[in-house]
Structure formats: structure tokens, C-alpha cells
């Protein structure tokens, strides 16, 4: 049965010359799992919002949107609210109430459902999602992943037939987002709920989906099962850069036959098509100056007297001019270590030295003058003014000195920019203080693949200016692509450290997709470039 049909949909925002959505037509059957992808600003969010009547933006619209055969505009209020569910990007901002149970009940309360019925439905939902344990908690106590799961559950209690998700995993760490996507797949196969999800982290979701829709500049340029789309768009590197590593490898090497999507398929693609006489690439030895930019010595920290130690005996030396990357799971203490280095938190034992000088010897905030700067995870906390220009003038930033161009953004409000642009502006702001040591907390959070590549090239140009950069991240692929050295953080201290090639080749689980794909076949291949080089060196197998 056809759940959703969109025909010749065109939409133009007021005062805009070109339409945000152009002649889009597609339809979804019951139980289909469709992924919508495209660069930032390609009209994904606009299209999704048009499918949910309550969120439809103001502007000129033509074309037809039909839900279960009836035009969307003619649905009654109750059906429109309950039959189409919408989950947004930010886990925190879309929650309404303070308690988990109240959030679950919120939608049903709005529809005037009798109290007994509400109790039953939310109990059912809490059991299905396994959130019985945090049923009585405050929403603010939950982790980002739990919050997003709660948002999903509180939409599902209204029993929607169509579920629309606008980048739901952008703010989550990789483990939580894989969980979230797996939950979606389960909903789709257990209850045949139709799902449309906009995403730019496609590694997990593409292998699971039935349909891949690709948007570019407001138009739908592909609408087919994922393997067909990738085969069709093989030449479009800009679109493929967010796809699973196996698919990108296939496209880079001009593969033929069925396109691989998962690590398993990628591995058999390499083993079947390429030899492995050359097993490894010559490794550039990792060299560093002997001088330490940041040094932790036996550092212990806890938030409350009776809490557990968050940093317990942390020892770490980061050398001048390095791009250093700290990886690790949620709650392992990565961010805490960074805040302690920035002097925001005070360790109760041990010493932290910045450029050979103890942290407490930097008096009168001299630490933050031409020495150290830290960019927090939530970039919105960086902005204070209503335009980018004021923002940069305030801290005396000179945009001509930056390694990238932001002149076209100068008159916008910082909150109106995309995640990637916000990251660039905040970097510009932080670089104005001319730090020699830059601490970054999750700089790729919520960014699409091309914005990530941009950040990588900026970080490299910062290294050329001899700025030491310490980055905390969950993003394994990102770390492998730019870091000089990586370290794994676990339970408050460093458990493994090394150059990306050896570091990721040594890990079996916490490592890049390429490393997992080429293990045992090639040595120390960690990034896609490594794998592509090795494959082309070895050449295709003769059939």
C-alpha cells in the first residue's frame, strides 16, 4: 500500500529567487526504509518538513503530497499529528517536559487520550525500548543517545504510520547512533512503519535501507536501492564522500559487479578482485621535536568529594607542533582531561604543564593570551553577538590571515549558519587569540562529510603554522585521516598510543572500516587512500 506520494513538489521560501525544492516526485510503500542524503543546503530538511503538515515552512508551494491516498492538507488534526511522526536533530531542544514519563505521555495528553489508555501505551513503549529503568528520571540526567531514543519513543506512542527523521544521529556518538539506527531498522521490520531519514553519516544506515534518495540543489537526482545509486553516481566523488568505506573503495577503483556496502562485502570485493603481493606501504616515521607542549603527570580528578575518579593517574606528553588525537568511549574522561588542561577544572593531585610551565604559574589569565585556547563541543556557546562580523571584530580576528575563506558569511547571524560554517567561525574566533596550543572538543560533531574534509585540511594548515592541536573525538575515520599520533582513553587514563597506522592496525574493534576490511590482507592500511593505493599497486587479479 502506498503510504506517501509526492508529485512535482516545488517550494520557494519567501524573498528567495530559486526554489529550495524543485520538481520532486517519489512515493513510499508501507514498511519501506528510505534514506535521504545530500550536501548541507540541498533542501533535505525543507522537503522533510513539508511532509509533516504542522512543520511546513511558509512559502510558495506547488505539487501534491498525499498521505495514504488523501492530500496532506485535508487530513484532520488528530490524524495529522499522530499518524506522521517527526524526530529532529537536537536531542535536548525537542524535549518539552522535565521527566521521562511526562515526555512519553505528552503527545497522548495533547490528543485527549483517557489517562488509563495513556498509562498502558507508555508502559508498553517503555518496555519495548527498555527504558523502564529511567522512567522516573529527569530528562536532563540522560545521555544524548538516551534522549534521542526517548524522543523516538515519545513519537511512537502516538502510533504513527510514517516516521520522518531529520538527521537524528548528528549529535550522537558512533555507538549511540549505531544503536539508534538499529532500533529504526527493527521498527521497520517488526511493525512495518514507513521510515524516511535524512542523514549525512551514511556508514551504518545505507547497508540497512531499502531506498536511497539523493538530493542536489533542491532536485532529486537519484531514487533507487543503494547499490544502484552508488553504481550510477560512481563519478560523483562529492556525493559519495559520506558513503560506506566499501562503497567508496568500489567507486574509487572503478569496480564492476555488485557494489559492496558492508565491511564484509568490502573485504570479499578486495580479496576477489585484487592480489596482495605488496602488503604494505612505506611508513613515514613519526618524528617530533623533543619539547613538550602539554604534559600530564599523574593527574587525578573527580567532580565531587565522594564521586569516583574521572582522571586517575593520567600521564601524557604531547609534543610541540603535533596534531594529537584522543579517542575513547563516552564517559571515559576525554573531555574532562581537555578541560583540566585548559585550566577550567582543577586536578586534586598531579601536575599539568603547558610549554614546560605549571598551569598554576600562569597568573592573571595569561594562559589564554597567545598561549592556549579551547574550543568546546557545543559551538553555540562560542557566539555572543548577532552577526559574524561583530563576533570577529570583538576578538580582533583578521579574516585575511585565516587558512580558509569566510568572507561570504560575515553578515549572517551565527545561529543561522550550518554546523560546518559555525565550526569555521568559531575556529576563526579562537585563532584570533593566536594560541600556540589549540584544544578541540569533538570538532566534527554534526558535520557532513565534506565539512569534515574541510576541517582536516584546516588542521593540516595549522600544523604548518606550528600550532599544536589536541583533538578529542569519537570519530575514528576522522582521527585516522589527520592525526600525527592517536591515543586511546579508557577509565581515566591513556591505554594505547601511537601513529595512526600502527595504532589502528593494532586495534581490532576500535578502528576504521578500511582497517577492518583489509586486516590480514594488507598491513597497516588504515585510510581509504592507503587501501586504494595498495589495490592499484597490486593490480587486478586475472580471471
Amino acid at each position: 500500500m502506498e503510504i506517501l506520494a509526492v508529485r512535482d513538489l516545488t517550494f520557494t521560501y519567501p524573498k528567495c529567487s530559486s526554489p529550495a525544492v524543485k520538481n520532486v516526485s517519489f512515493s513510499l510503500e508501507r514498511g519501506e526504509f528510505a534514506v535521504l542524503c545530500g550536501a548541507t543546503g540541498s533542501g533535505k530538511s525543507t522537503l522533510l518538513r513539508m511532509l509533516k503538515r504542522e512543520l511546513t515552512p511558509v512559502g510558495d508551494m506547488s505539487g501534491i503530497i498525499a498521505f495514504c491516498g488523501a492530500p496532506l492538507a485535508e487530513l484532520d488534526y488528530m490524524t495529522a499529528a499522530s499518524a506522521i511522526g517527526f524526530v529532529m536533530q537536537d536531542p535536548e531542544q525537542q524535549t518539552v517536559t522535565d521527566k521521562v514519563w511526562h515526555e512519553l505521555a505528552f503527545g497522548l495528553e495533547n490528543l485527549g487520550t483517557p489517562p488509563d489508555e495513556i498509562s498502558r501505551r507508555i508502559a508498553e513503549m517503555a518496555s519495548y525500548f527498555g527504558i523502564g529503568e529511567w522512567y522516573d528520571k529527569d530528562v536532563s540526567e540522560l545521555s544524548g543517545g538516551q534522549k534521542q531514543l526517548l524522543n523516538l519513543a515519545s513519537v511512537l506512542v502516538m502510533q504513527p504510520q510514517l516516521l520522518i527523521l531529520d538527521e537524528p544521529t548528528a549529535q550522537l556518538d558512533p555507538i549511540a547512533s549505531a544503536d539508534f539506527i538499529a532500533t529504526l531498522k527493527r521498527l521497520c521490520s517488526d511493525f512495518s512503519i514507513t521510515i524516511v531519514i535524512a542523514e549525512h553519516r551514511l556508514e551504518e544506515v545505507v547497508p540497512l535501507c531499502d531506498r536511497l534518495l539523493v538530493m542536489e540543489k533542491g532536485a532529486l537526482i537519484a531514487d533507487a536501492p543503494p547499490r544502484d545509486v552508488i553504481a550510477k553516481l560512481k563519478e560523483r566523488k562529492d556525493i559519495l564522500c559520506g558513503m560506506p568505506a566499501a562503497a567508496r573503495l568500489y567507486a574509487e577503483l572503478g569496480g564492476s559487479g555488485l557494489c559492496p556496502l558492508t565491511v564484509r562485502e568490502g573485504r570479499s570485493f578486495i580479496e576477489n578482485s585484487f592480489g596482495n603481493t605488496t602488503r604494505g606501504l612505506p611508513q613515514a616515521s613519526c618524528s617530533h621535536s623533543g619539547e613538550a607542549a602539554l604534559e600530564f603527570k599523574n593527574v587525578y580528578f573527580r567532580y565531587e568529594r565522594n564521586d569516583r575518579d574521572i582522571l586517575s593517574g593520567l600521564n601524557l606528553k604531547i609534543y610541540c607542533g603535533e596534531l594529537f588525537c584522543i579517542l575513547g568511549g563516552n564517559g571515559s574522561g576525554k573531555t574532562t582531561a581537555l578541560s583540566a588542561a585548559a585550566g577550567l577544572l582543577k586536578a586534586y593531585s598531579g601536575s599539568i604543564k603547558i610549554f614546560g610551565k605549571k598551569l598554576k604559574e600562569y597568573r592573571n589569565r595569561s594562559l589564554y593570551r597567545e598561549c592556549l585556547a579551547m574550543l568546546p563541543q557545543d559551538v553555540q556557546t562560542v557566539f555572543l553577538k548577532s552577526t559574524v562580523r561583530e563576533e570577529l571584530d570583538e576578538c580582533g580576528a583578521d579574516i585575511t590571515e585565516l587558512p580558509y575563506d569566510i568572507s561570504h558569511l560575515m553578515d549572517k547571524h551565527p545561529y543561522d549558519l550550518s554546523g560546518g560554517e559555525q565550526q569555521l567561525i568559531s575556529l576563526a574566533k579562537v585563532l584570533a587569540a593566536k594560541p600556540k596550543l589549540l584544544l578541540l572538543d569533538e570538532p566534527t560533531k554534526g558535520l557532513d562529510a565534506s565539512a569534515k574534509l574541510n576541517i582536516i585540511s584546516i588542521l593540516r594548515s595549522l600544523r604548518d603554522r606550528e600550532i599544536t592541536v589536541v583533538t578529542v573525538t569519537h570519530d575514528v575515520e576522522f582521527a585516522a585521516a589527520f592525526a600525527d599520533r592517536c591515543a586511546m582513553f579508557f577509565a581515566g587514563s591513556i591505554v594505547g598510543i601511537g601513529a595512526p597506522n600502527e595504532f589502528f592496525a593494532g586495534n581490532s574493534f576500535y578502528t576504521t572500516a578500511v582497517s577492518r576490511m583489509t586486516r590480514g590482507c594488507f598491513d597497516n592500511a588504515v585510510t581509504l587512500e592507503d587501501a586504494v593505493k595498495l589495490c592499484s599497486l597490486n593490480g587486478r587479479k586475472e580471471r
Partner: protein
Amino acid sequence: MRSFSDYNPIAVTVWFFSVTGIAMFSSYPLIMLMSLLGGAAFFILRSGLSRGKEHLFFWGLFLILALANPLISHNGKTVLFVMDHNPVTLEAALYGLNSAAMIVGVLYWFRSFTQIMTSEKLLYITGALSPKLSLILSMALRFVPLFSRQSAKINSAQKAMGLYKDDNIIDDIKGKSRGFSILVTWALENGIITADSMEARGFGTHRRTQLRRFGFRAADIALLAASLVLLGIAAAAAGSGSLDFSFYPTISAEAPDKLGKAGLIAYGALIMLPIIIETEVSLRWKFLRSGI
């Protein structure tokens, strides 16, 4: 088997306001004494003896209030001594003690009340009045901590980016005020998304209902009825003048008549209600546990 704090919030609230209401509108010393001792005992019963600081604060306040009255007010006939040409009278001293007992007693009660009335129970009570009011309250309860967390985040972010140039108060205030103005912008931006999310889940399409997490059981009704009856007797006694007590110019009170005696007993019983409930629960639990 529920302890007193698990009873239906409406019954508990009625009981609390009965106890504190009588204490506030009467000035009969015995009532004050019962309220003060009952309030302190109830607080200790609930939180144990660990809250030393709070007790210290309450009794410190008691001392200040009791001493302040005779120093300020010079009414009364019986002069104890003269200080700085001002007479200090027995009546004023006793009046000070009485009103200190009233204030500190009521403070003790409210301290326990705020412990028992979690936000959920508050929502339940307001929800009984109006589901919309209850929603606003719930959103406010979420927003206030959200605000302070965001403000702390902004401050530390700006600090680590070198916003504060010097280590002095003026620079701190400047920085904080800039932080505050963006906090407001952030809250408005945040509000738009929250509003979208509310509308997407059907807010405003229908008359709201409310999930009730507390039911009225027989014991709740009994507690409510007992509170109301005892309140009625005590209020009648206090209102009819049977429990009048005047300090000035000399202490004068008649022995309470029948209604007055009934009122005193009723008030004592009212205060004892939770203690009776708690004792009953713990005895029953002991008995039941011996059978496990």
C-alpha cells in the same frame, strides 16, 4: 503499605496546610509548642539526625527571634530589668518566645513539605486544577536547570577562548553580561524548536488530558477525611475565641472550655497522624517480614 510521603499528594497537602494554618492563625502557647515539637520531630523522623546544619539554622533563628522581641517591644507590666533606660518586660519576652516557636515550627513543617512534594506531585496537584498550568510548570522546571547549565557552559567556553582579559571584577561583570545576552537569544532559538516539537505532537489540537500517576485509595480518603475533621474542630476552637491568649499588658488566659480542650486534642491528633501511619507501617512490615 505506604509510608506517609507516598500517600496521595492532595491528601498530604491538605494535611500540611491544616497543620501550618492552625499554627499560623492561633497564638495559643500550647498549640505553638505542639507545632514546634511536632515539626522538629517530623523532620528528624524523615531525615534522621544528619541535618545538623539545618537544625542549627532553625534554632539560631529561634534564639534571635525570641531575644529580639523584648529588646524592641517594651509593652507589658512586669519589668524584669532596665537596659539603657529601656525596660525589658516578662510579657514581651514570653511573647517573643511564642512567636519564635510559631515561625520556627512552621519553617520546620515547610522544610519537610518541600522534601515530600517532589516536582511530580506538584504537577499532579496543578494538573487537577488545569492540565495546561501543569504543563507550563513542567516546562519551567526543565528550563531553569537547562538555563543555568548553558550559562555555565558559555562562561567556561568564553573563558578558555580568552574572553576575559584580566583578573578583575569589572572584566568579570562585562563578560557575564555578554554571556547573559546571548543566553537569552539561545533560549529563544531553543524555544522555536521546542514549539515545533510540541506542535508536531499535536499540541493544541484537542483538550489536554493528564496522565495521573497517583490514585485515591481508601487510606488516602481516610487521611483526607481525618485531616478535614480534625482541622474543623481545631479551627472552630481557635475561631470561636475558646483558645484566646493575650500577653499584654499582663498575661491573661482562662482555662480552655470544652471546645478549647477538644481543639487542643484535635490539633495534637492532627500532628500525630503521620507518626501513627509511619509506626503502623513499620510494625506491620516487621510482622510481615518475619513471615518471609
